[in-house]
């Protein structure tokens, strides 16, 4: 059951008393113990507290109390979520002995209140600054579809754990694409919510104005269910036919043939020939780079003054370069951000849903240094965010959904909408999943 059951199946089985939460939790913990070394998804397994939580769920069922819509569902969280009693490492060795968190992050508390059982914390790039989950302290997270390839980042542990079927649900964070990129490379579902739609309280910050948090799951229905639980919003049933367009220009450049074929297949299935241009997406990506480096650098400056040599060297380089960025450049990037957000808003007055690839390529090999960008070799890891970074700047909800591949590595597509139209987005995703166009595929590693 733990490898194939959906969140709904598990919750129904536990709520009805057919399955004991404690049995399911024990099986999950044993499975993690046996298989985590394949992908290196987990950084800490919280066996004791998970068993306690599962027993509490079983007590409620025995006493006729509904434990909630996630009754007994095992979940895990990226290592930047506060968990009461534990240090929040944010993937940094220097934080392994940090002062333990006093309380759970808001969304961790929400999942627990819904009956979810937290079983562990998940690997990430140090301080969420990366698209690879290559962490010098906690190791590299490998892609369950091919262990020689990257899982993506920075929420790579969160994506790999769900794709490898170690847990059916995990939490990640997305500043420049850190949910969407690993969701795409691992062939599962994830969503970056609209700015402010889901509370980031109790998570280790990176870039205050770009940070969001969200879930990873294995189906469209689960994505909607968990989104509602995390946001606290009950989405109304959408009955309006969405106006859909494919994003062209920047989002059609640099894509590999297999990614562009998948994109075309989805658009053909929808019968959509609307093509939308989102001008200045390339500049939007550049602005995201500058804002990220400047805010990240400022956040870490005091710590770098005393502990610079304890950072992941690659992260330290980026943070130091960002800390030295002239203020005028940061302010110009912020001025561009205001301009770009208005342009996106105008486009979303015309269309309800915009579709684009999530990453330009399938998961790169771990040892792959470069990929071609505009015909020129460029760092592979940094360019995984080519299509996600501009949309981050817009502050709109964007889901990454897995194209149904019958062979080869996973491919993800972004579905973006305006804040407040999430119900329409989820309805379209469910329909495309029902039609077999979008679907999670089982990895060979199980």
């Amino acid at each position, binding site marked *: 059951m733990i490898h194939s059951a959906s969140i709904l199946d598990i919750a129904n089985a536990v709520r009805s008393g057919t399955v004991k939460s404690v049995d399911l939790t024990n099986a999950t913990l044993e499975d993690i113990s046996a298989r985590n070394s394949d992908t290196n998804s987990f950084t800490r397994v919280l066996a004791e507290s998970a068993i306690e939580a599962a027993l509490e769920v079983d007590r409620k069922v025995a006493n006729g109390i509904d434990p909630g819509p996630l009754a007994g569902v095992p979940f895990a969280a990226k290592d930047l979520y506060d968990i009461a009693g534990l240090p929040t490492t944010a993937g940094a060795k220097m934080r392994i002995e940090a002062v333990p968190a006093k309380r759970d992050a808001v969304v961790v508390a929400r999942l627990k209140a819904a009956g979810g059982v937290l079983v562990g914390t998940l690997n990430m790039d140090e301080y969420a600054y990366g698209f690879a989950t290559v962490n010098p302290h906690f190791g590299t997270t490998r892609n369950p579809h091919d262990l020689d390839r990257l899982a993506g980042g920075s929420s790579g542990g969160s994506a790999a754990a769900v794709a490898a079927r170690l847990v059916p649900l995990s939490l990640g964070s997305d500043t420049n694409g850190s949910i969407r990129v690993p969701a795409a490379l691992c062939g599962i579902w994830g969503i970056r919510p609209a700015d402010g739609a889901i509370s980031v309280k109790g998570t280790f910050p990176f870039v205050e104005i770009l940070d969001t948090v969200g879930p990873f799951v294995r189906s469209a229905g689960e994505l909607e269910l968990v989104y509602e639980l995390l946001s606290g919003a009950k989405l109304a049933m959408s009955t309006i036919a969405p106006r859909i367009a494919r994003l062209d220009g920047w989002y059609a450049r640099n894509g590999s043939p297999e990614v562009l074929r998948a994109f075309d297949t989805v658009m053909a299935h929808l019968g959509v020939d609307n093509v939308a241009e989102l001008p*200045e997406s*390339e*500049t939007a*990506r*550049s*602005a995201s*780079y*500058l804002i990220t*480096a400047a805010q990240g650098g400022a956040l870490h*400056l005091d710590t*770098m*003054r005393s502990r*610079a*040599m304890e950072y992941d*060297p*690659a992260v*330290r*380089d*980026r943070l*130091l*370069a*960002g*800390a*030295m*960025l002239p203020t005028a*450049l940061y302010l*110009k*990037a912020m*001025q*561009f951000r205001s*301009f770009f957000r208005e342009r996106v808003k105008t486009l979303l007055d015309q269309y309800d849903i915009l579709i684009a690839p999530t990453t330009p390529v399938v998961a790169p090999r771990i040892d792959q240094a470069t990929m071609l960008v505009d015909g020129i070799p460029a760092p592979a890891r*940094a360019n995984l965010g080519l299509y996600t970074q501009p949309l981050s700047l817009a502050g709109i909800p964007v889901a990454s959904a897995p194209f149904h591949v019958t062979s080869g590595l996973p491919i993800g597509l972004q579905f973006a909408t305006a804040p407040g139209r999430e119900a329409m987005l989820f309805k379209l995703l469910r329909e495309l999943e029902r039609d077999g166009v979008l679907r999670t595929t089982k990895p060979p590693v199980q």
Partner: protein
Amino acid sequence: MTPPKLEDSKPIDRYRLDVSTLLGLELPTECVPGIEASAELLRHHARKVEAFVFALNANAHEADET
């Protein structure tokens, strides 16, 4: 008017000075090339943003005058 240009390159020694001033400590020499590479990437992105914002502001200014 032509957009202002950022420096195309910055000597490594200058970065060592900047880091030293900013952090109040000297980093080992082997750290400098990595910082320089990251700074070069930021300069690449800064050039794009600078050029666009310059044009944006110039257009807004011209619109104000007409």
